[in-house]
């Protein structure tokens, strides 16, 4: 084992904490990300955990991981492969072996690498590294369990608590490896375990002893020091994941609009955290209802929207399927509701904890009848805030349901986020009926529309003189009374479509990043932004020209979409499904035939190196 320490300055590093789902790896990872962000790094995280809460101990299925990429700048995603792996057992080593970079550090707990543990992870020999062909990594064996036991002897913590604290010992070693001062970590632990001082002290002790152990033994050939970022914008920062950002975006929009926020919900992975955050925000007056099922989740939301709230519901693919009929009702009654679909692997129960972009077709088309609504997609954890705000603004100002697509990757992944000054965000002005008509005016009907935008007016129950009835039956364009007249139905179908399409007049034009004069345009949407941006930058660093159009507005598309896509010789649409956005673009833009597709449906984030390789091939084609 080398005895000298070399401190290396590096720009970016990817660390993966991995162990049994009960080993506390998510906590180690979260704390390390938080303290790195506080120290001024950019971060991107990727929690990757099994659907089972506790799979059999030591088994390959039970491995839970938390990947964090930290760097001084340009951290757009959580990284393909790791520089450092913390493996609490042989199963964690085996599962993560394919994702290790050459020369990476593997910190592992020797106490859980005995024969029995190796067998649980289906190793055949007693040398797991050789068996996995890991000849070019730097293993750091540390007896973490026994060292943690020694560290916490006499603290009064029971044996189970002591063993569970080894995740903090591991974190301590990692902090030493990256020259992280423990001051910030101590504070975070005090906050986390504030209600249990004994536990807080024990965790801090294990952390400190882990750090000191690393320091005293000079564990490895090199330790890293990551430059701290020179954050360009002054202000107060916190770290935030996509689900929490959605919750805050909704609260911010309700504040702007001067309405109450209402969430009708039902627990579903990976969307539940939005409900949890909003349920806790009753202190800000948020009304969160946990209902008996997904259908009740959206139906209460429709009731909340009818009654004058910014009403939202959060779900994932299977839940969106259950909400289809009610979404049609929201289309028909033209009420402002926001539906957040945190996409996961499908179909059916699929891969609940993994990430995909396979719900696009469902969002666009998954209802009976001609049933147009607005579809948007968030690009990153912090963009979830802006997207939720924007989705709410569009819903409230245009009296339409909006589906906001996020995904498991950006929902659970986190980044540093500047707490916004709400003056920087636009006003939200719902079309309240009493601002346009007085109660005596008999020309007002529930489906009377603004002639320009085709938006109907919002007559909120409780408003005198505007009692009215809406519902799922087709209504007459002029009288708003139930109608089955053929010409009227055609008119209403066309009007509902035109209303949604006209929203394109009020959304930003599609931006192009990179070389606008390139031959090749990469097209992407939603949560893959970080990976596509990095792939584009890597290609440009090799001197090749390439451009990227990353979409957030899907229905309606930005008005310049056709113009952009037709301006490039080669267009490649990259997405985590079998080509849903590519097909949609072809259906929307006439004459757009020759587009290429890059599709992966593996439940894992796209890999930058695969993207670079594939795009380079396309660029080099004559």
């Amino acid at each position, binding site marked *: 084992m080398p005895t000298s320490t070399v401190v290396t300055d590096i720009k970016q590093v990817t660390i993966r904490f991995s162990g049994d789902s009960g080993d506390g790896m998510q906590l180690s990872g979260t704390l390390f990300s938080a303290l790195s962000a506080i120290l001024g790094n950019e971060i991107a995280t990727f929690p990757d955990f099994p659907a089972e809460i506790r799979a059999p101990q030591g088994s390959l299925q039970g491995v839970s991981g938390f990947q964090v990429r930290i760097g001084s700048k340009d951290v757009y995603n959580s990284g393909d492969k790791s520089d450092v792996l913390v493996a609490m057992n042989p199963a964690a080593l085996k599962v993560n072996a394919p994702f290790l970079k050459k020369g990476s550090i593997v910190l592992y707990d020797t106490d859980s690498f005995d024969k029995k543990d190796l067998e649980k992870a289906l190793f055949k020999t007693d040398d797991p590294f050789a068996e996995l062909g890991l000849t070019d990594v730097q293993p750091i064996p540390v007896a973490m369990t026994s060292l943690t036991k020694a560290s916490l002897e006499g603290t009064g913590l029971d044996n189970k608590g002591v063993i569970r604290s080894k995740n903090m010992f591991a974190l301590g070693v990692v902090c030493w490896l990256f020259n992280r001062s423990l001051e910030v970590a101590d504070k975070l632990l005090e906050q986390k375990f504030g209600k249990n001082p004994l536990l807080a002290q024990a965790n801090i002790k294990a952390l400190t002893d882990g750090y000191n152990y690393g320091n005293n033994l000079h564990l490895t050939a090199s330790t890293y020091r990551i430059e701290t970022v020179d954050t360009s914008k002054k202000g107060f920062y916190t770290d935030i994941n996509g689900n929490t950002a959605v919750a805050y975006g909704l609260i911010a929009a309700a504040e702007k609009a001067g309405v109450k926020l209402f969430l009708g919900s039902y627990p579903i992975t990976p969307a539940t955290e939005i409900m949890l955050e909003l349920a806790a925000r009753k202190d800000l007056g948020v*009304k969160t209802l946990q*209902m008996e099922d997904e*259908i009740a989740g959206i139906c209460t939301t429709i009731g909340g929207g*009818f009654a004058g709230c910014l009403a939202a519901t959060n779900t994932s693919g299977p839940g969106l399927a259950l909400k289809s009929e009610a979404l049609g009702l929201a289309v028909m009654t033209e009420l402002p509701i926001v539906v957040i679909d945190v996409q996961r692997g499908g179909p059916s129960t699929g891969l609940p904890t993994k990430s995909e972009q396979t719900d696009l077709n469902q969002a666009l088309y998954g209802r009976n009848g001609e049933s147009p609504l607005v579809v948007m997609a968030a690009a990153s954890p912090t963009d979830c805030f802006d997207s939720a705000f924007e989705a709410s603004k569009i819903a409230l100002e245009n009296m339409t349901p909006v589906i906001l697509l996020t995904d498991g990757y950006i929902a659970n992944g986190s980044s540093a986020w500047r707490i916004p000054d709400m003056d920087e965000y636009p006003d939200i002005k719902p079309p309240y009926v009493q601002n346009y008509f007085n109660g005596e005016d008999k020309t007002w009907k529930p489906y009377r529309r603004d002639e320009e935008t085709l938006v109907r007016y919002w007559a909120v129950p409780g408003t005198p003189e505007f*009692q009215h009835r809406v519902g799922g039956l087709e209504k007459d364009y002029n009288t708003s009374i139930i109608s089955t007249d053929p010409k009227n139905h055609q008119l209403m179908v066309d009007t509902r479509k035109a209303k949604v399409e006209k929203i394109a007049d009020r959304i930003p034009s599609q931006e192009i990043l990179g070389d606008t004069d390139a031959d090749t345009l990469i097209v992407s949407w939603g949560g893959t932004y970080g990976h596509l941006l990095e792939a584009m930058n890597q290609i440009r660093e090799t001197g090749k020209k390439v451009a990227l159009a990353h979409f957030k507005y899907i229905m309606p598309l930005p008005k310049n979409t056709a113009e952009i896509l037709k301006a490039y010789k080669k267009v490649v649409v990259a997405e985590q499904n079998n080509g849903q956005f590519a097909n949609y673009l072809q259906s929307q833009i006439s004459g757009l035939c020759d587009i290429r597709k890059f599709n992966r449906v593996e439940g894992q984030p796209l890999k930058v190196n695969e993207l670079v390789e594939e795009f380079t091939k396309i660029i080099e084609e004559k």
Partner: protein
Amino acid sequence: METSGIKYTPKDFKSENAVRWCPGCGDFAVLNCIHKAMAEVGIKPHETAVISGIGCSSRLPYYMNTYGFHGIHGRACAIATGVKVANPDLSVWVATGDGDALAIGGNHFIHTVRRNVDLNIVLLNNRIYGLTKGQYSPTTARGAVTKSSPYGTVEDPFNPAELCFGARGRFFGRAIDTDLKNQVDVMVEAAKHKGTSVIEVLVNCVIFNDGIHKSITEKEWKADNTITLQQGEKMIFGKDNNKGIVLDGWNLKAVTIGENGYTIDDVLTHDATTPDNTLQLKLAKMSLEDGLPVALGVIRNAPEISYDEAFEKQIDDLQGGKPKKSLREFLLNSANVWEVK
């Protein structure tokens, strides 16, 4: 949802829309009774919302001059819950049928009752699917021959009262479509009750299930075959007002006062307000097959804090009377915040 002090008439709650039920349908009477009950309670039409699902009875909101919402099949209770929690100042009513509330909407019905959301659910029970033309419903008797049970059903029906009680309901009343007085009385009590009120109205479907409630609705049998319960009064019924309900061991029994040694003192006194629902459930389950009259009127009325009231109270308590914090104020005071200067 304050009563306004203004004197309303049923007309104030009636919309201009032409009513389109079949001639002779029991739903007309229910609609008129709702208009009357709302006028009597005196809540302003614009502070009233009527929510429905799908089915003949669910067309009812279109005939109200209140705020109205015609939803989708089975979901009226869920939509109404949203309306009530969003704006607790509204008086929220649900119009639903036996198929809408107890089949496709069964889950929402029991959970709404369990939560005790302050809604007045008018359940128009004609024991048949009318709008889809005559299939059996969850309240159709075993063996009934309908379009979808040509050889008779082989399943037992729900008794709506049992579902309501089983879901810990705090208010249950029952009425017959043609008995306007009792129906209005029950609706008024239901409107005054804070929490979920279930009002079962036995209605006649003239087309697909004509006369299904005949044994209790026909004038010649009604007096002997039903009992209209009145709070604090003896349970007396019958053409000659000489029959009473007494306790016989654990069971209820109908007796004639003055016969077999029974006196008026043996007759039970109705108390809808006891939190223990054992006796009320027995009353609600009385049936002709067991030799007992069908109970009408307010059978249970034992108020407990409603969901929406508890919900608002929690928000008030958390905010402690202080002005509401903004999101930014909240975030700046939360953990994990650092400043970049």
